[in-house]
C-alpha cells in the first residue's frame, strides 16, 4: 500500500472544561473517500480545525500534499464575481495590477473541469445558496490540493446539486485525490465513502471499510448505548396535568399551528434549514410575521421580544454566543438581563440550582465552558418565570455531562408544570424528552407523533420529506 496522504496520530485537544478530542487517530489515502461521522459535538469540526491549523493540539500530523477545506459556512465575498472569489488572496497580477484575463481564464478552467455551467463573471450574491456552495468547492479545488475536506457539503444543496457534487467527488477520487467527507446524511456516506470513521464524545470509535458495515451498526456507534436520554425522567408517561389544560396556542404563524398543555414537552424536529428557528423567532417577536398567539387562553399581541416576555414566554435561543450571551459581561448581568429586577440572592440561588460552575457570580461569562455558558442562558430565562419556555438547540456544542444536566432541568421544569417547546437537530434528544413531536420540512408540519411511540426512522422520513 502506498504511503497515506494524511496521517493524524493520537490527536488530543482540550478546551476549558471539555476534552474535545481524546487520542484520535485518522488517516487518508490517495484515491479514497473517507467519511467522518458522529453526532453534533462529537469532535468532527474540532478535528478538521486541528487539521486546518486553527487550533493547536497534542499528537502528530503528517501531510503529503496541500489541504483544502470547505467549511459549512460560506467564505465567499458576496459582492465579488465567481472568478474573483475563486482567486481570492492569490490573484494573478503584474506589479500589483490584477491580470483580469488570467483571473477569468483560471476560473473558467476550474468550472469546466468540474462541469459546472456557471459564468465566472456572475456576481456571487445573485447565485442560489446551493450554487454558492459549489463555487466554494470550486475555490477549494482550484488550489490543486490533493487532500480535500468537505464539512456537510450537501446541507444547503438541492438533490440535483448534490448529484453534481457527487459526480465531481467521484472524478476527483479516480484522479487520486484523497477526500474527507463529513456528513449527517448517512445515506450519502454509504453511497460515496470507501471507509467510515465514527467519532463519539471526542473519541474515534472505529474505522472500517464500508463493505464491512451496515447502517444500524454505524448509528449504534454514533449514539452509544450506555446513556439513554429520558431514562431518568421523573415525569410519568401519562402526564401529570389534565389534557385539556391548554396554556399556549399558535395559530397560523408562518403557516404553522400547534398548541401546548401545561407540563408538556413538545419536540420540534427537522433538518437544518427546515424553518424551525425562523418559526420560534417569529413567535417570540424577533421577526414578527403575523398569525395569532394565545397564552393561558388569551390572545396576546407580540411585536417585540419584550411583548413575549411580558406574556410569559421565555426563549433560550440557539447559538448562545451570537444571540444568547454578553460574553464580556458577568454571570450576574447575563442572568438578570431579561428580568432586571432580580435581586442578587435570587440570581445566586439560580446559579447554584443549575450548578453553573464559576468561582463567583461576578465571573465573566466568556471564561466559562460551553456547558456552563448554556446554563447561564437557561438561568436568564428561568428568572423571567415563564409559563412557556422555548429551547432552540439547547445542547449544541456542549459536553455530555452538561447535556444530561440540561435534560434533567427540562424534565424537572415540565414536571413542575411549565410548557416547553424543544427545537433540536439531535433526534435522541427529541425522542427521549418529548411528549409529542412535530416534524418540520421546508417550513411546513409534515408529521406529528406521540413521544412514546415515535421512532427515529419515522421522524427522519418526515423530516426529509419522504413520509408515505
Amino acid at each position: 500500500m502506498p504511503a497515506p496522504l494524511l496521517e493524524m496520530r493520537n490527536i488530543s485537544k482540550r478546551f476549558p472544561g471539555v476534552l474535545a478530542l481524546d487520542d484520535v487517530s485518522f488517516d487518508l489515502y490517495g484515491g479514497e473517500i473517507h467519511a467522518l461521522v458522529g453526532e453534533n459535538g462529537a469532535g468532527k469540526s474540532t478535528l478538521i480545525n486541528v487539521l486546518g491549523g486553527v487550533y493547536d493540539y497534542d499528537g502528530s500530523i503528517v501531510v503529503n500534499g496541500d489541504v483544502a477545506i470547505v467549511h459549512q459556512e460560506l467564505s465567499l465575498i458576496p459582492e465579488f464575481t465567481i472568478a474573483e472569489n475563486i482567486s481570492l488572496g492569490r490573484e494573478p497580477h503584474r506589479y500589483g495590477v490584477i491580470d483580469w484575463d488570467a483571473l477569468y481564464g483560471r476560473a473558467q478552467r476550474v468550472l469546466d473541469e468540474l462541469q459546472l455551467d456557471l459564468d465566472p463573471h456572475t456576481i456571487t450574491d445573485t447565485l442560489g445558496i446551493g450554487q454558492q456552495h459549489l463555487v466554494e468547492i470550486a475555490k477549494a479545488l482550484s488550489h490543486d490540493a490533493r487532500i480535500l475536506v468537505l464539512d456537510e457539503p450537501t446541507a444547503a444543496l438541492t438533490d440535483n446539486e448534490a448529484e453534481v457534487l457527487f459526480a465531481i467527488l467521484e472524478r476527483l477520487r479516480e484522479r487520486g485525490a484523497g477526500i474527507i467527507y463529513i456528513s449527517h446524511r448517512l445515506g450519502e456516506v454509504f453511497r460515496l465513502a470507501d471507509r467510515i470513521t465514527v467519532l463519539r464524545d471526542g473519541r474515534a470509535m472505529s474505522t472500517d471499510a464500508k463493505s464491512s458495515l451496515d447502517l444500524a451498526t454505524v448509528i449504534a456507534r454514533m449514539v452509544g448505548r450506555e446513556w439513554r436520554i429520558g431514562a431518568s425522567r421523573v415525569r410519568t408517561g401519562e402526564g401529570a396535568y389534565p389534557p385539556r389544560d391548554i396554556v399556549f396556542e399558535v395559530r397560523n404563524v408562518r403557516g404553522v399551528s400547534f398548541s401546548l398543555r401545561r407540563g408538556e414537552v413538545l419536540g420540534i424536529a427537522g433538518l437544518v434549514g427546515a424553518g424551525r428557528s425562523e418559526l420560534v423567532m417569529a413567535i417570540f417577536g424577533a421577526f414578527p410575521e403575523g398569525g395569532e398567539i394565545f397564552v393561558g387562553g388569551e390572545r396576546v399581541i407580540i411585536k417585540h421580544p419584550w411583548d413575549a416576555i411580558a406574556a410569559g414566554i421565555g426563549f433560550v435561543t440557539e447559538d448562545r454566543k451570537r444571540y444568547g450571551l454578553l460574553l464580556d459581561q458577568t454571570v450576574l448581568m447575563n442572568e438578570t438581563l431579561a428580568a432586571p429586577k432580580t435581586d442578587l440572592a435570587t440570581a445566586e440561588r439560580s446559579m447554584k440550582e443549575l450548578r453553573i460552575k464559576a468561582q463567583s457570580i461576578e465571573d465573566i461569562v466568556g471564561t466559562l465552558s460551553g456547558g456552563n455558558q448554556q446554563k447561564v442562558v437557561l438561568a436568564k430565562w428561568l428568572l423571567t418565570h415563564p409559563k412557556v419556555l422555548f429551547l432552540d438547540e439547547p445542547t449544541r456544542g456542549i459536553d455530555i455531562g452538561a447535556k444530561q444536566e440540561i435534560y434533567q432541568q427540562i424534565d424537572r421544569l415540565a414536571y413542575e408544570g411549565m410548557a416547553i417547546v424543544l427545537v433540536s437537530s439531535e433526534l435522541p434528544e427529541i425522542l427521549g424528552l418529548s411528549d409529542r413531536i412535530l416534524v418540520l420540512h421546508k417550513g411546513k408540519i409534515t408529521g406529528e407523533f406521540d413521544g412514546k411511540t415515535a421512532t427515529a426512522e419515522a421522524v427522519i422520513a418526515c423530516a426529509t420529506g419522504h413520509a408515505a
Partner: protein
Amino acid sequence: MKLRAYTMVIALVVIWMYFQIRTVSDIYPYGLFLHPVNLANLFKQMCVTGVLAVGMLLVIVARQIDLSVGSLVGLAGGIAAMSQGWGLAASFLLAIGVGTIAGALQGALVAYANIPSFIVTLGGLLTWRGVILYLSKGETIPVRLPIFRLLGVALLTKASGIALAAVAIIFLLWKRRIIAAVLTAIFVAMMNAQGGVPLPVIVLLAVAIAGHFLTQQTIFGRYLYAIGSNPEASRLSGINSRRHVLIAFALLGALVGVAALLHTGRVGSASPDAGTLMELDAIAACVIGGTSLMGGRGKVAGALLGAMIMASLDNGMSLLSVENATQYVIKGIVLVAAVGFDMAGRKRYQ
C-alpha cells in the same frame, strides 16, 4: 481591568512627577506644576472635557459615537449668551434644552432611522456649527450676567469647601474607601490654600457621581452595557435597544448644555467657534480611561482619569512653553499609544 486601571493611575502620577521636576525654578524650588494655584487651573481646565466625557461614555458604551459635541457646545453656549436678557434661569434652561433636543434628534435618527451614528453626528458637527454661525452672525457675545460668569470661575468659600469635604470623607470612610477619603482631604486643603474649591469642579463632581450611579446602579445604565456588548442578544432578551440609544444621546446632549455653560462662563464670552475639537478630547478621555469603542466596556471613573491625563498634558506643556505644534503631536501619540496598550491587554471571548 484592575491592572489596567492601576497603570493609568501610574501613568498620571508619572506625568505629574515629570512636569513637577521640569518646572523647578528659583521662584518655585519644588516645582510649579503641583502648586495649588496651578492645580486649581488644571482642575478648572478639565471640567468641560470631564462633563463631556461622562456623557460621551453613555453613548460609546452602547457602541455608538457622537462627533457633534464640539459644535453643540458652541451652539448651546451661544444660545445661552444670546438669551441672557430673559434672565439666568431661561438662559441656562435654553442651553441645556437645546443640547437635549439636538441629542435626542440625533439619537432618534441613529436608533429609529438606522443611520450610523458616525454619519448622523458628523452631519451634526457641520449643522450645529452652521446654526450658531447664522444665529450669532459670526460675532462673539460677552457674558453679562454675573452669576453666569461665576459658574465658570467662582471659588467656594473655605468653610463651605471644608463642610462639603467633611460630608464626602464621612461617606467615603463609611464605604471603606480610605485612599479616596485621604485624597479628598488633600484636595480640599490644597484648593483652600489658593482661595477655595472652584465651583466648576463641584459641577463636574455632581455630574460624575450622577453618571456613575446611572451606569452602575440603574437598569437603564446596565442595559447600555448590554446593548454595546451584544445588541442581538440584548434585543432577544426583551431590551428596547432603540429607546435606550435615543435616551443616551439625549443625556449626552443635556451634558453638552452643562459643559457649554461652564465653558462660556469661564471664557467670559460665547464665540461662534467655541468648542471646536472638544468632541475629540471627550472621546480621547473615554478611550484613555479604558472605554471600548466596540461597546460594553468603560466606567465614569476611567473617563475622568482620561480627562485628567489630557488636561495634565495640556497644562504641563503650556507651563513648559512647548510649542503648539509639538503639543498636538504628543497628545496624538498618547491617545494612540493608550488604545494600542488597551488592545494588547484585551482578552477576546469567543
